[in-house]
């Protein structure tokens, strides 16, 4: 199993009245989620907290009940755990979508979701929207999430494309939770190593602090202090949006068996 030290922090920022971000930090489940809600009259708050709550509830059932039903839609290119995470995202999308259609004031509400979960020895990262998931390893920071924004998708198509789009598109998402009946999350699964760090955030942070700066500020600090310093910096630079950060540090990757036999089996390759 993977031993993780975790910390999460959310802050309203300096300009907004309410906080539409939600987060989940659950070391028992090995599940960490950031959701950035949108939609007026507190609907954004409703959307993001629904996402976070549903994700937690869904993933918890596998822990509490060994007979819990595996997802009906099984993607064979993904591991069992990755299928569960994706399925949790589909369910959350469905819940937000249903609720948004149940009340006029919730109409059109939505949320991003960025979720990380750990298996015995891997990290699974999945997202919808533009809340980034960074992996810090060997002094380098890489993105495990795929930004679903007009600009990013245009950029991928052809580098000079985004020039045509104005400022109005900088926050324009191409996918979000709760907007349509179905959603397609991006997902990846990577081997986990000791001292890996992960940073999940809402765009309140990523708009203000570059990945390089995040790397520098987080790598030699405890997750707790890392969160604090990132939130403070985003606020110092204007705090235009709600700011949410989760920082995770992998303390150890332990193998199931006892220490000695586990070690031997690792070396000898016989389990």
């Amino acid at each position, binding site marked *: 199993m993977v031993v993780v030290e975790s910390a999460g922090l959310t802050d309203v920022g300096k300009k907004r009245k309410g906080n539409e971000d939600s987060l989940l930090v659950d070391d028992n489940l090995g599940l960490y989620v950031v959701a950035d809600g949108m939609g007026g009259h507190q609907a954004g708050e409703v959307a993001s907290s629904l996402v976070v709550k549903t994700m937690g509830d869904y993933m918890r059932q596998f822990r509490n009940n060994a007979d819990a039903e595996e997802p009906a839609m099984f993607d064979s290119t993904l591991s069992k755990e990755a299928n569960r995470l994706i399925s949790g995202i589909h369910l959350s999308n469905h819940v937000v979508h249903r609720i948004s259609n149940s009340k006029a004031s919730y109409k059109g509400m939505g949320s991003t979701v960025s979720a990380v979960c750990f298996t015995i020895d891997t990290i699974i990262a999945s997202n919808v929207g533009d809340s980034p998931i960074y992996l810090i390893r060997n002094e380098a920071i890489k993105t495990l*999430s795929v930004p679903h924004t007009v600009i990013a998708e245009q950029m991928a198509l052809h580098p000079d494309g985004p020039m045509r789009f104005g400022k109005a598109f900088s926050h324009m998402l191409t996918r979000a939770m709760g907007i349509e009946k179905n959603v397609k999350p991006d997902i990846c*699964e990577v*081997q986990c190593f000791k001292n890996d760090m992960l940073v999940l955030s809402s765009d309140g942070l990523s708009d203000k602090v570059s990945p390089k700066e995040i790397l520098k500020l987080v790598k030699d600090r405890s997750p707790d202090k890392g969160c604090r310093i990132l939130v403070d910096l985003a606020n110092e630079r204007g705090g235009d949006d709600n700011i949410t950060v989760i920082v995770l540090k992998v303390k150890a990757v332990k193998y199931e068996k006892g220490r000695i036999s586990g070690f031997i089996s690792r070396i000898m*390759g016989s389990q």
Partner: protein
Amino acid sequence: MPTLTLKFKKDSAKIREYKIEKGQAVSIGRLDSNDIVIENLAVSGHHAKIDWAGNGFLLTDLKSKNGTFVNDQLAISHWLKKGDMITIGKHVLIFEYDKGEAQPEKGDEKMGETMVMDTGKYRSMLAKNVSSVASQSGEGEQLGVLSFLAGGDGEVELSKKLTKLGKNASSDVVLKGFFVGQTAATISKRPDAYYLSYVGGFSKPKINGKVVKDSVGLKQFDVIEIGSFKMQFIHKS
């Protein structure tokens, strides 16, 4: 945001709808480099364009061979109004503002906020950009392949998000050998590239002769060695 609806002749079904953005220029023509492509020989390569000028949309004919018509009148430049019918060759583009659309100067206040784009609108916008690009990049995703150089035959497609290589029979790529780990290595498909990671076993993987201690991004034609096995990593487009 105004819409241009493309039809073949006035009364037929619509072929496609284009949203036009204030502040954005739209080119119309037969060539793929246009924003709105009309594939018909009656249409010039670069036939006409629409510009956002001041507070309205201006249609300009780019000295096309067969001309541009607005409401059946030959037009050289024309300020577009609601309901205008632009005829190019045998195709028709109908210009409409959205219902209750805010006037040009308004509606900018919410710019900083995150919004979700109407997917229909986006697709149509994207479609015109994709049309010229899609053919080059396929689905926009390149599939990695492991091609055996020694110890095995053929190719293994890396279509999974996480491909396991090792001795264990449940591995995606089974590699025999006393020193090869049950799971010797994994290859994950990450947004930027494929990464190979060492997991366990006495035989650590090597990439181009260098031992992999944790994880390394794979590049085109990298040679991976695990025990007596040798594979080459290839990006297929």
